C-alpha cells in the first residue's frame, strides 16, 4: 500500500477547547473519519491530515497559533511533514 493510501491518524483530547479544532479538521479533510474513545477523539484519514490555522480561527472566533496544537494532541500516526505559522501536515513520506 503506498503512502497516499496508508491511514494517518491524530488523537486529540476531548475538551471544550478542542471542538473548533476538530470541526476545522473535519471540514478541511473530507475523507477523515472520527472515532470517540474515553476522553479522546481519534481522527483518521488515508494518506494525510491537514490543519489550517485560518479554519480553526474561523470556528474559534479568535486568533489561534499553530503552536497551540501541542496542547490538544495526545498521539499521532504518520510523519509531521510540515509545521509553520499557517499549517500543520501529518502524512507518510514513502
Amino acid at each position, binding site marked *: 500500500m503506498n503512502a497516499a493510501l496508508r491511514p494517518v491518524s491524530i488523537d486529540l*483530547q476531548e475538551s471544550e477547547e478542542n471542538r473548533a479544532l476538530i470541526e476545522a479538521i473535519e471540514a478541511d479533510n473530507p475523507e477523515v473519519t472520527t472515532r470517540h474513545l474515553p*476522553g479522546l477523539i481519534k481522527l483518521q484519514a488515508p494518506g494525510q491530515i491537514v490543519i489550517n490555522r485560518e479554519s480553526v480561527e474561523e470556528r474559534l472566533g479568535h486568533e489561534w497559533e499553530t503552536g497551540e496544537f*501541542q*496542547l490538544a494532541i*495526545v*498521539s499521532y500516526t504518520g510523519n*509531521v511533514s510540515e*509545521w509553520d*505559522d499557517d499549517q500543520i501536515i501529518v502524512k507518510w513520506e514513502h
Partner: protein
Amino acid sequence: MSTESPSAAPRKKLPLKERYALLTRDLDWEPSYVDREQLYPFTRYEGIKIHDWDGWQDPFRLTVDAYCKYQAEKDKRLYAVLDGFAQGQGHLTLSDASYLNSIKLFIQGVTPLEYAAHRHFAFLARHLEGPAPRFAALCQSIDELRHTQTQIHTISNYNKYYSGFHSWSKMHDRVWYLAIPKSFFDDAMSAGPFEFLISISFSFEYLLTNLLFVPFMSGASFNGDTPTMSFGFSAQSDESRHMTLGLEAIKFLLEQDEDNVPIIQDWVDKWFWRAYRVSALVAAMMDYMLPKPVMSWKEAFELYFEDQMLSGLFPDLDFYGIRPPRHVDDAIAEKEHLSHQVYKIFHNFSSVAAFTTKTPDDAHLDWLSEQYPDTFDTHHRPTWEKHQRVEAGGRRMFFQGLPQQCQVCQLAISFTEKDDPGKLSFRRSEFRGETFHTCSDGCKWIFDREPEKYVQAWLPVHQILKGDCGGPTIPDVLAWYGIQTGDNGEYTGSPDEQFWRAWHDPSLKHGE
C-alpha cells in the same frame, strides 16, 4: 513628535521557521579552541557515520519561549484536576481499591524510568553534535523530569490511604520484579548515544509507546482514576514530540550513510524485543488488574502494534532497507498467552511484592474466555479454577521459593513454546565456560550478541542467594526491599480491601 495611530498594524512576529533557526542553529558555533572530536567524544565509537548534522529536522520547530509557555499551561491545567480530586475525596469513586495495584506497579516501575530518561536526555543535550537534536533532547529531558514530578504528585494522593506506594524509588533499585524495567533502562543508558536513541526514542517512545501508556491511561479512565487519566493526557502531548524525535532519529541515521543500516537494524531487532518483554507487565495489568477492563492485551497488541506499526510504520522504513524486527512473529504468536503467564508470576509471588493479587472470579474468567476464545479455556482457565478450589479450602497458594530468571529480560522464565503452549520454553548459552539461561529466542539472541554485557546482570534471585539482599530469610529480604506488612500478599483481607469495605459499607449508620 508623532504618536502611534490607533489603527497601526501590530508589530509582526517572526515566522516560526525563522524564529526556530535563530534560536537553534544560529546559536551554535564551531569552536576554535578545541577540535570536534574532543568536544564530542561519544559520537564515533558505535560505528555510526554522520556526514551532516544539519540534516536533522525538528518538525515541531519548538523554541525555548514557546516551550516554557505551553508547558506551564499544561501544568496549570493538570494541577487543577489533582487538587479537585484530592479535595473531593475522589479516591472513593474508584471502581475498587484493587485497581490501585496497577498504579503501584506504575509508580514503582515506570516513574523511575522517567527520571532515568530525564538524566540521559540531558547527557544527549550536551553530547549530540547538532544544535537541532541537542535542543530537542533538552526539551525531552525537561519533559521527562516533568513527567516524574507530575506522576509523583498525581499518585501521592493515594499514598495517604493505600499500601504499597510509599517507597517506590528504593524498591525500584532492589525489588525482583522491578529489575525488569530497571535492567531495560540501564541497558539503554549504558549503551552509546545512537543506540540509546534507537532503544528509547524509537523503540520505546515510538514503536511501543501506545502499548505501554494507553492501557494505563484508559484503565485509569474506566476505573474512576481521574488524576492518572489527566496526567496521561497532559504527558501525551509531550509524548507526541518524543515520538517525533524518535522517528526523526532513525530516519536521520539511516539517511546519513548506507553503512548505518545494518547497525540500526540490529538495534531495532534488539530493542523491539527488550521493550516488548517489558510491555508484558502491561499485558498482565490490562487483563487481570483492572476491575473494569478496557480491552484485552491481544486486542491492544493488534491495534497499537500490528496495525499501526507493522502495517503503518514499517512499510515507510522499508524505503531505507529496514525490515520488521527479528522475532516479531514470536510476539504475535504469544499474544494469546502473554498476559496469563505474566499474571501467574505476579499471583505466585505477590507475597513478596509491593502489591496484592487475587484469583479471578467466574465473571472475570468468563470475560477472559470471550477475549481469548481459542486458547483461554484450554490452556489457562483450568489453572485459575484450581486456585479457586485451593482457596475455597481455606489456603492461598504462593510460590514457596525463588524463580528461575531470564539473564536478559529478568522476567521469571515462564513463556511457552509456539507450537506447544503446555511446554515451558528454556533457552541456554555458554560463555567462558558458564551457563546462562534465557526465556526465548529473542532474549537468547540478545545475550549471544553481547554476552560480555549480560553476564554482569544483577539478577535479584541470585543476589538474594548470595546474601546481598538483607539476609537469608524472606523477612530479611522484605525489610531490605522496604516492603511493609499490608503491601504484599493476597488482596482479599488486605488492609486496602478492609479499608475499602469499611468506607463503602451500606450498613454504616449515618455519621458513623
